[in-house]
């Protein structure tokens, strides 16, 4: 049987093309930065990763609230997908920052407030996925994932504002379009939108996989049966 085309691939392809263009601009077109030289090109990957990590985890927070209210498996799948993508972006962010720090500050890591809160963010959301794996059924998985996401999200605004609250750290303060050379705007924006689109694509794909797994579990548990909202096997609407 021929499968229908998954529409999220359009988002993925646009994201990929935009990332290719943004990286080409960042690596070969924009001038090297004062003081940092070629190393400054790391910014065009690091900064969009940071924006999107916080943005995707904010999406997870919204999905978590929605999932708690409507208890639909599709919301649980989307929530899990977005948390996984958020963890991926945060992990990349921390590693990129570490590689950036080596040539510029001569260190791989320091106990800077922004670095510490970003590492806590990574551990907290990895913990959300870990908590999820211990749940016994789909209903419990949804509740645990949503509640843990809401709790872990407390760190997101802290990560964002910490450079304002404790400005004497090694990490630079917030940048704005007015404080960044106009030569760099296009590459930064292209990479940021590209990473957002790729993040959305990956979230959709992961959600599809989870829903497919749920359906397969229901089928193997009892042919012709389906899972209820709590993940229990139902046969002709009666819980087993």
């Amino acid at each position, binding site marked *: 049987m021929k499968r229908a085309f998954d529409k999220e691939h359009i988002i993925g392809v646009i994201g990929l093309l935009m990332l290719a263009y943004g990286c080409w601009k960042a690596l070969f077109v924009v001038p090297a930065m004062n003081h940092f*030289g070629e*190393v400054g090109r790391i910014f065009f990957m690091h900064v969009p990763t940071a924006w999107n990590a916080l943005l995707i985890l904010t999406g997870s927070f919204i999905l978590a609230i929605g999932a708690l209210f409507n208890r639909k498996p599709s919301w649980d799948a989307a929530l899990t997908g977005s948390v996984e993508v958020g963890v991926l972006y945060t992990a990349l962010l921390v590693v990129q920052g570490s590689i*950036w720090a080596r040539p*510029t*500050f*001569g260190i791989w890591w320091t106990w800077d407030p922004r670095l510490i809160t970003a590492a806590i963010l990574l551990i907290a959301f990895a913990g959300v996925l870990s908590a999820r794996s211990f749940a016994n059924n789909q209903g419990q998985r949804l509740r645990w994932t949503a509640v843990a996401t809401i709790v872990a999200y407390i760190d997101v605004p802290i990560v964002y504002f910490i450079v304002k609250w404790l400005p004497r750290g090694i990490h630079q303060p917030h940048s704005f379009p007015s404080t960044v050379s106009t030569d760099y705007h296009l590459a930064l924006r292209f990479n940021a939108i590209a990473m957002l689109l790729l993040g959305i694509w990956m979230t959709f794909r992961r959600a599809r*996989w989870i829903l497919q797994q749920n359906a*397969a579990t229901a*089928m193997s548990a009892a042919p012709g049966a389906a899972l209820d909202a709590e993940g229990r096997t139902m046969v002709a609407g009666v819980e087993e």
Partner: protein
Amino acid sequence: MKQLASLLTLIPALMMAASPAVVMAESPADQREVCDDDVDNDGDGLVDCDDIENCSSFHTCGQIQGGWSWVIAVYGLSFAGFAGYALYITRGLNRARKEEADNDQAR
């Protein structure tokens, strides 16, 4: 005794006047540039890394050598991360779909 007391008070005053530290504090031009405080410490009109003469050897100033290897490391790692996760979910989804198709066929 009085002469001795006035001598004792005079000695620290003379020592302070002769101290180079005091002279430096009074004259910004003789101060060293601190390269990461956003202040023109030595009064030459150049702040931090812009003061190339005094800050070129400071770790965040000057052109960092061997920059491309760090750039390639970051871009390569990021692409590997995206591609690795995309491959993981694509394989997982395809496997789950195949299982479903096999189940349908078995029925």
